[in-house]
């Protein structure tokens, strides 16, 4: 495999952690995530992905595993999300990994280059006392190891060869949330509280 695309990375992620609870960002990441992890929570909320996933990780028990499938643009929008991760990981390090799909462009907004173009992600993440690595290619086994050995994994992707235009999602944000709640209830064995008191 020469280079990763968002699609090939999501296929690899599914192979690596098929039962993961995934909270994902928007755009192409959401489109491919919907195929790989149909019950994932695709958030139309840049900056919210990592901290929402961290909250989920605090709520579940092992062996549940939560992936925050963030993107470079989304994480940059709310870098303070990194500031809560050390405290969260102190309680849930075996249940959470943040994956940042880094295409270095704002693809859903017309493929404008990201500003700044060059970011030393590993150094940035390490400054929050978090373990980070770049994942550019490799097997599912290698990805499992990388997820296990790091708090934040930067998946470098290049979608320039993708010929299919992005299709709008046929699942609304509310529907995605309902599906994810149901998946969480199945995973944890904890039913959702009843939303009414009158029969």
């Amino acid at each position, binding site marked *: 495999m020469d280079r990763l695309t968002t699609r090939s990375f999501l296929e690899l992620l599914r192979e690596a952690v098929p039962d993961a609870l995934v909270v994902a960002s928007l755009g192409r990441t959401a489109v491919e995530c919907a195929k790989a992890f149909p019950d994932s929570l695709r958030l139309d909320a840049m*900056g919210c992905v990592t*901290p929402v996933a961290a909250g*989920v990780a*605090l709520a579940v028990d092992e062996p549940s595993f939560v992936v925050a499938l963030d993107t470079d643009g989304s994480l940059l929008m709310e870098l303070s999300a990194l500031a*809560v991760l050390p*405290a969260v990981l102190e309680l849930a390090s075996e249940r959470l990994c943040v994956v940042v799909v880094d295409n270095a462009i704002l693809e859903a907004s017309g493929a404008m280059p990201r500003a700044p173009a060059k970011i030393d992600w590993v150094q940035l993440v390490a400054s929050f006392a978090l373990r980070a690595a770049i994942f550019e290619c490799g097997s599912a086994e290698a990805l499992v190891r990388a997820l296990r050995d790091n708090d934040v994994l930067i998946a470098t992707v290049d979608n320039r060869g993708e010929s299919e235009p992005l299709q709008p999602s046929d699942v609304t944000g509310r529907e995605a949330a309902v599906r994810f709640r149901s998946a*969480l209830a199945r995973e944890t064995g*904890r039913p959702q509280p009843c939303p009414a008191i009158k029969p």
Partner: protein
Amino acid sequence: MTPGGSRFVSTLVHSGVELVTAVPDSLTASALHDVGSCEALTYIQAADESSAVCLAAGFALAGRRSIVIMENSGLRRGCEALARLGLTHGIHVVALISYRGAFGEANWWGIGHHATMAPLLDALGLRSAEVRTADELARRLPEAYSMFQTRETSVALVVHREALDG
């Protein structure tokens, strides 16, 4: 002895709260210190209100009770998260918001916090109630979770200093 040694912590625990996320301010600092000392509560301090809201929201998705605690000025920092999660995804939170700029406010910087609070609560679709005493907080918090449990709205308790005492 109440959990964590304070009335406030006892109210949280008896309401079934398990996770507290917060950006402390001078009104909530003492209460949050007690929260951090309580073994029955998980306390995560955030650097900004957006992260605090998101953490609480993620935890609550699993059917467990969380609360986000912030100053009312934090509504402005938390706007995007509250709007995207609440209005776009129907993912809600229970918030306890300290009331800076309430009538009698003696700090110049607190006055503007009052001016933006009510319009933001309304615009973001948070149902809210003002809470003036610890007794009232003990009564209102279970009501807040009853309403939150409908999955139709976020709920905010706007608390005066006296409600956090004791």
